């Protein structure tokens, strides 16, 4: 069978670290990195006799994530123990949620090649992150428990994905929703947003699902897309060769560009969940839900639709702007001041983005007041400065944070729109540049650009270009 005759079916589990100040069950700081085992206490290192107390902000953030993705909320929720032995988890169980997760039945809207679809969310539950095993040369394996007990939400999707493109679109959208909801910093390179992919293939048209494999803990969207592509082809080859797929956990080896089976025992999934006796149930009231709903910002999809309809910017520009909540907020405030939102969008995407690095762009750390950009746009719209002068004003504004009107005033950058002044200058330019004038008169229209250049030179770029062109044409027209 050709590879194209198979359909890929995937479901995703995304783990996202919540950006609370402290860990989920103790007051240790929830910070990335740090000297090994310096963000730890007897509770998060699983010392006997210690007792966990749930961080209330974890519940709040998980509910925010749930309500931002259209989930229903289990008004009665509880925590459970998931038992397994691995030294990154010192208690030999992870406190997670089994049958009553905080959130369930949500959805995320995605679009691939202009085709919209909905990805179902099965559930969102809270749990604790594990420590880090450092495989150094030496006698034993070393463990750093700084990450142990960092609060996580696990977002489990329905098996709704049929292509790597859909997975990419979903991860980007989910990430942006969590960033908007301000519950996680979603830094993939620091592992605060990572993804497991469950993947199986089946002949197109077949109802039953094939045997799936799981690829764990991937923290780059590009790697995930490559891993999916590789794994689907690997499974197709096995089936075509008459083999069977083994249900197993595989790891993406980026260096070799392949997935590798991880050594796993058949009983590894016998987690023997049971209700966590050390923690009390979580009850969410309608009132809490309403309060959280009211505190959520307008989500990117809704903003995008609004930008297309009310602000008249292009879809491409809208996508770039809504990618970060703070950039979107900046755009909205600047647009309130400015007479032209399209110009605002343009300036954000070209001049501002070129001055920010990737992190700053994503966090929307724009060191300007949005009103200042709005005012600058108005100076252009009102013909006070032309767009090339505006770039100079912008550069100054970026460095000094001065108001654009003040910069124009101080530097004397006002556009020359005085008819008489420009007219006599145009006459001089025509008199002194016989060659382009002759060219223009003989029908080479482009020759007027050379005259235009002379005008800009004389006015140090401050002439109103529209006026100059029409003045030159007027005088030259009289010479024909």
């Amino acid at each position, binding site marked *: 069978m050709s590879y194209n005759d198979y359909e890929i079916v995937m479901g995703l589990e995304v783990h996202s670290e919540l950006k609370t100040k402290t860990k989920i069950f103790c007051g240790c700081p929830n910070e990335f990195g740090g000297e*090994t085992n310096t963000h730890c*206490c007897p509770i998060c290192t699983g010392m006997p006799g210690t007792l966990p107390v749930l961080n*209330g902000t974890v519940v709040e953030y998980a509910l925010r994530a749930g309500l931002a993705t259209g989930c229903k909320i289990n008004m009665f929720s509880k925590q459970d123990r998931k038992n397994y032995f691995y030294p990154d988890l010192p208690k030999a169980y992870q406190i997670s949620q089994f049958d009553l997760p905080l959130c369930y039945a949500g959805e995320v809207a995605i679009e691939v090649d202009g085709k919209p679809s909905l990805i179902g969310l099965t559930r969102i539950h809270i749990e604790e992150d594990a420590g880090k095993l450092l495989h150094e040369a030496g006698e034993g394996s070393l463990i750093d428990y700084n990450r142990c007990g960092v609060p996580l939400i696990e977002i489990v999707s329905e098996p709704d994905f049929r292509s790597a493109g859909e997975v990419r679109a979903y991860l980007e959208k989910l990430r942006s929703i969590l960033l908007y909801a301000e519950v996680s910093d979603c830094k993939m390179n620091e592992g605060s947003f990572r993804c497991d992919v469950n993947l199986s293939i089946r002949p197109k048209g077949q109802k039953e699902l094939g045997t799936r494999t799981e690829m764990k803990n991937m923290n780059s969207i590009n790697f995930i897309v490559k891993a999916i592509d590789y794994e689907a082809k690997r499974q197709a080859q096995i089936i075509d060769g008459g083999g069977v797929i083994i249900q197993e956990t595989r790891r993406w080896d980026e260096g070799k560009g392949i997935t590798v089976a991880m050594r796993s025992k058949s009983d590894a999934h016998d987690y023997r969940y049971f209700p966590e006796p050390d923690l009390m149930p979580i009850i969410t009231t309608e009132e809490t839900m309403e309060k959280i709903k009211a505190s959520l910002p307008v989500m990117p999809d809704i903003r995008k639709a609004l930008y297309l309809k009310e602000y008249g910017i292009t879809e491409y520009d809208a996508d770039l702007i809504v990618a970060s909540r703070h950039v979107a907020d900046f755009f909205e405030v600047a647009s309130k001041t400015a007479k032209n939102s399209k110009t605002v969008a343009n300036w954000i995407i070209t001049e501002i983005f070129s001055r920010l690095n990737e992190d700053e762009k994503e966090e929307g750390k724009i060191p300007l007041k949005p009103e200042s950009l709005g005012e600058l746009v108005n100076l252009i719209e009102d013909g006070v400065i032309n767009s090339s002068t505006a770039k100079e004003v912008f550069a100054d504004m970026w460095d000094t944070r001065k108001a654009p009107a003040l910069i124009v005033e101080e530097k004397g950058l006002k556009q020359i729109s005085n008819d008489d002044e420009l007219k006599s200058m145009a006459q001089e330019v025509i008199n002194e540049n016989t060659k382009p004038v002759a060219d223009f008169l003989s029908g080479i229209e482009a020759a007027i650009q050379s005259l235009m250049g002379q005008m800009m030179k004389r006015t140090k770029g401050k002439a109103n270009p529209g006026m100059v062109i029409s003045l030159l044409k007027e005088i030259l027209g009289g010479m024909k």
Partner: protein
Amino acid sequence: MKITKEQVEHVAKLARLNLTEEEKISFTKDMEAIISFADQINDLDIDDVKPTDHVIPINNVFRPDVVVPPMDRELLLSNAPSQENGCFSVPKIVE
């Protein structure tokens, strides 16, 4: 419910317990007695009884999200059977 020796061996393996042959036999008997005791619930009408999620009727016990200084690393590691380079050290784990 009948409990087999294989089930006891399975549970022991999951719990990383090494049982002697005698222990396996006695645990099989004990577990069967415990499960049979719980089996009595199957004969009762419990349609109107809500599952007990916790034996103490208290909910929403939360801690404020305020940082408490972590424990001194030397002190924390002093309980570890083995330590190296500021880390807990365990027998080598291979993926």
